[in-house]
């Protein structure tokens, strides 16, 4: 027993010997057994399918296994070269980055501000109601949101344009003008998600010690000063983690939001990688090409994630790994 206690004191310094490790495992084997299940899950459902990424480097055939398919030209990189020569892909890549960056720049601060404002509310009932109403849109599918958007934004019969027309103004093409479409796209995205995203900030705010606020009150700080000097720094680690995750996804994109919202008149701004992959890959049967695009997208995402993580560490935050 004494030996075990001594070992526990020292365990952070010295590596365990084989014998000690065995004792350790024997004592906590149930925990390891529990860990096995998620590990198996990841191996079976996340890692083994990665084998099929090889399709990106091979000439795809429906009747051959991945191993049997012949390698693509240019040492297997034919489809990557093809993708980068494809104007539509370059356009989709540009749009993906552009729309995602806009989403971060415009959309990222919104839930933070909303959480801060909500936190200042005194009436509990009112606060709860506002919060619930704000995160309701998160549960609507994009197809439904598009249906709503049509009722509100369509040029001829949309609510807003009818009002504008009654007031003698010019019709605004929210959904079928390429530049306005970007604004509508970003706006609808924020509307759908800011309430939901604010939950995590509210949770972080509630974890801040009330003593800090009391001390600040004693020092004569007003509400704005408290918000600025206590609440915001209190949730800074949360903000950084979420920002890293958002930046890591700058090349990724959901499928349904752009797909549902896009139409023929706005394609030059609306085609993103996910819809490009769907059109060329699933509908156009170019599986190798689109797997190559998907692989490129994933690798670029990892790169951005690491970059953001490195940057946040440089800035003195903890990062996520």
């Amino acid at each position, binding site marked *: 027993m004494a030996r075990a206690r001594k070992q526990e004191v020292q365990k952070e310094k010295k590596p365990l010997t084989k014998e000690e490790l065995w004792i350790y495992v024997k004592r906590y084997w149930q925990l390891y057994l529990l860990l096995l299940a998620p590990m198996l899950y990841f191996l079976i459902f996340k890692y083994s399918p990665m084998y099929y990424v090889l*399709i990106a480097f091979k000439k795809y055939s429906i009747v051959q296994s991945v191993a049997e398919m012949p390698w693509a030209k240019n040492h297997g990189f034919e489809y990557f070269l093809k993708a980068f020569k494809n104007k539509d892909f370059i356009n989709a890549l540009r749009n993906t980055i552009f729309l995602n960056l806009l989403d971060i720049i415009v959309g990222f601060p919104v839930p933070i501000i909303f959480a801060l404002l909500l936190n200042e509310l005194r009436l509990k009932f009112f606060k709860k109601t506002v919060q619930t109403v704000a995160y309701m849109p998160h549960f609507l599918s994009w197809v439904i949101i598009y249906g709503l958007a049509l009722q509100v934004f369509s*040029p001829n019969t949309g609510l807003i344009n009818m009002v504008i027309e009654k007031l003698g103004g010019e019709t605004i093409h929210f959904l079928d003008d390429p530049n306005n479409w970007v604004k509508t796209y970003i706006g609808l995205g924020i509307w759908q998600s800011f309430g939901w995203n604010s939950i995590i900030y509210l949770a972080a705010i509630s974890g801040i010690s009330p003593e800090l606020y009391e001390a600040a009150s004693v020092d004569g700080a007003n509400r704005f000063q408290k918000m600025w000097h206590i609440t915001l720094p209190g949730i800074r680690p949360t903000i950084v983690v979420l920002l890293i995750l958002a930046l890591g996804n700058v090349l990724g994109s959901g499928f349904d939001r752009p797909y549902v919202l896009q139409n023929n008149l706005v394609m030059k701004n609306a085609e993103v990688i996910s819809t490009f992959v769907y059109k060329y890959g699933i509908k156009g049967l170019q*599986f190798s090409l689109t797997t190559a695009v998907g692989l490129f997208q994933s690798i670029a995402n990892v790169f951005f994630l690491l970059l953001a993580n490195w940057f946040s560490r440089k800035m003195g935050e903890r990062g996520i790994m």
Partner: protein
Amino acid sequence: MKNRVLSLLLTGTMVVSLAACDGGNGNGGGQAGGGNEGGGNAEPTQEVTQETFTGTADEIEGGSSSELTDGKFAETRHITVEIYDRGNDGGSDPTNNMYTDYIKKGMLEDHNVEVEFVKVPRWTETDEINNLLAAGTAPDICLTYSYPTIQTYADMGGVIDLQDLVVDNKNDLPHLWDWLGQTNMYWDKSVQDGTLWALEGKRANNNRIVTFIRKDWLDTLGLEEPTTREEFYNCMVAFRDNADTLLGKDAKQMVPFSVSSDVGWRAALLIESFMDPDVTDKELYTLGFDDRKLTQNGTKEAIQLLNQWYNEDLMWKDFAIAESNTEDDMMKAGYVGAFMHNWDYPFRNGEDSINANLQRNVGPDAKFVAIDCWENSKGEYVKYCDSTAGDRKIFFPTTNDEPLASLLYLDWISDPEHIEYLQVGDEGVTHEKTADGAYTFMPATGDAIMNSGQNIDMTITCNGLHLSTDELTLASLANNYPPCDPEDVAKANEVACNGKKPTKNAKITSIEAETGMGEALNGKRDIIYDTCMSCKPEEFEANWEELMADYLSSGGQDIIDERTEKWEAQYGDKVNLD
């Protein structure tokens, strides 16, 4: 001990519940490759063995199969057959209704073959059949409108070559050969290697597209039915200017001429009237990859005219963003003055047809009637239409273990007697007979409802009404759209038949530059049409030039070049087919 049991139990539960998760939230590369796993399970590639085969079927004695006695298998065989699911409001179950029962019973009795129907959504059929083929779970008898899809899978070895099968079993397939004939049986046969990946279902009726206009509006405004482009334009202007008279408080909803985002189809007659009346078969073919005439000469002027009309508020402003049913609803509500569509479009779907709805919603006189008003530079009213082939294609994926039973199915479904029953149903339930023997069709209920006009989804080798005699067919055709007026249908049929110009088959089977390009180029085509139709007039020229250049450099020009090259290799200086 208790703890150990508990922890084991917990672990077990966790493993089971995690295994039940399907990992559906993978992203990026994983998803792009999705649907490929089936590849490993599919059958090995079929080698092409008919390299030397060049003769026509006339020279070849058809055979019959030794597997059959009296047309029947000794043991019951099982096949699956694709059937379109149109999702009609109040339709019958596409896989289980009066007509599927008739087929199942007949096939079992005549050939000892058990038939199972597999439904595929009609409006996304190409995507769906792609998914099924990629997963190796496609039905034994597949049906699609998209030959490139078949070609793509055939190139990968996923489709059965039918050439030997139809010849070797010719004697067992009398109805199939009789009905489809050489044209449709061999339409898709390769000149190069004699392979035959698909049989062409036959159009009993190759009417294509007709322009419809609101007769009651013309009457209200004292206008004649337009017979020229100019007169049509004047009617549209009159509709626009008299919206208050025609629609009252709904005047704002007025759409004189409605065209959806598929401009190339919904304005086809207008676009085609700008083409050279003496256009050669070679030009039609080499510039003909796009079936919406994008690359044909004259199309630019046609779209420019549409652009002018659009900017004069003669057309539908929300066309690009509206959901798919919106336009039909507008027609039914009575907001639309004119449109182009399939020749029988306003009569389709019985009580839910556009004309029936109009009469309920607007008044007894309200209806769309067919007009003929798109004259070309020679003053002719040409209707480019399809051959009897080139419609739905039937093919067997290599996962089909019962090719003979499947062919017998096609034969059974091509028997004139069976076609007639599937199209007319039971007397007193779906039809009654007039004195001269013609069928009058009546709205059916329950299981007897046909989900498609003339039950074309059931009669996959036959599209359109086809009864025992041509007279009977014509007389019955007009009665085929209750509760719509038979005279209106007859007139639409007449207009559709005026100046028909059927497509010819150049028999140049595979253009490599086209492989896999269909989706991308069709998408670009629609963008060109939609953008150029709806932009400001002063931007038209620049938009057209820029977008066309993009279309051509994205593969369009390669296709035209390869088509020209192959035409010249095959026909030399000849510019017209026989």
